[in-house]
């Protein structure tokens, strides 16, 4: 599988629909403190089925919905769509007939998240399995959150061992 594009709408500070094309090689993301760079990484983990609001710096999952600013009202929904190239046909059977897979997660205030793959409603578990089979997912060790290096350094040896379980 290859990830080609991610589209964010109403997700944290990305209130207006934003397309981020993910190209091969090394892509750098820069900008001042607080402008939204880490929010992009959180959107990737979120659409893959991240289920810990705390790991997204919130106290509840609704905290990922654009909360409004002094000039703009908050939103009631947030959705993120990940576009996957499946030409290699490595997806799980239930999704493996298409060249392109669009995985969407939509959250509505007070009503939780819904998931769709190419328009078809699926369970969170189906989405998590899709990404797990592709050696990725919300808890992939390749997604290094800000401060995670420090957590690894100060982790107790028993907790540090858990990083091996992602490789096993």
């Amino acid at each position, binding site marked *: 599988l*290859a990830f080609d594009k991610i589209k964010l709408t109403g997700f944290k500070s990305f209130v*207006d629909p934003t397309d981020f094309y*993910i190209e091969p090689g090394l*892509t750098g993301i820069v*900008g001042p403190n607080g*402008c939204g760079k880490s929010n992009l990484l959180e959107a990737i983990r979120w659409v893959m089925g991240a289920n810990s609001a705390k790991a997204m710096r919130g106290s509840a999952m609704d905290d990922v919905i654009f909360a409004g600013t002094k000039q703009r009202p908050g939103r009631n929904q947030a959705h993120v769509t990940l576009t996957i190239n499946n030409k290699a046909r490595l997806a799980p059977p239930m999704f493996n007939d298409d060249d392109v897979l669009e995985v969407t997660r939509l959250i509505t205030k007070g009503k939780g998240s819904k998931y769709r793959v190419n328009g078809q409603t699926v369970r969170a578990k189906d989405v998590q399995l899709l990404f797990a089979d592709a050696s990725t997912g919300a808890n992939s060790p*390749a997604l290094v959150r800000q401060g995670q290096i420090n957590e*690894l350094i100060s982790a107790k040896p028993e907790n540090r061992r858990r990083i091996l379980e992602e490789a096993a």
Partner: protein
Amino acid sequence: GRTRLLAAFDIVNGHFGRLFTTLFGGGEASLALTESDDPLEAGLEVMVSPPGKKLGSMSLMSGGEQALTATALIFAVFLSNPAPICVLDEVDAPLDDANVARYCTLLDEMTKSTQTKFIAITHNAVTMSRMDRLFGVTMAEQGVSQLLSMELTQAEQLVAAE
């Protein structure tokens, strides 16, 4: 479960030793499973010897040396089972320029040996100059993020002091 963990340990340890030496430009390091006969309850210890320095535990290293060692460990786990996407959020923050340069060289090598797409969130000018492309995130309207494709000089202006 136990056999798989030990097998994974060997693979990760092999990558780790090599990546440590690459990132530090020398020296050696290895992992050890300790404090328990059952590997499923064991601790993961990291023994390191940076170039010219004695062997010791990771906890005695400097802040930057610890960060570089932890980065080698994360990449070792990654290489044992490469993901289609790897995102590194300010991993280079505590590194001096020489270490950042080696870190970027390692990223280059990994783009050649894997199909992985890499995204590095950074404030570091050296890292910015080593990327294949740059995107800037701005808040022209307060509290609202915008994503824009950028050239290096534009990106440098974006992060420069006002």
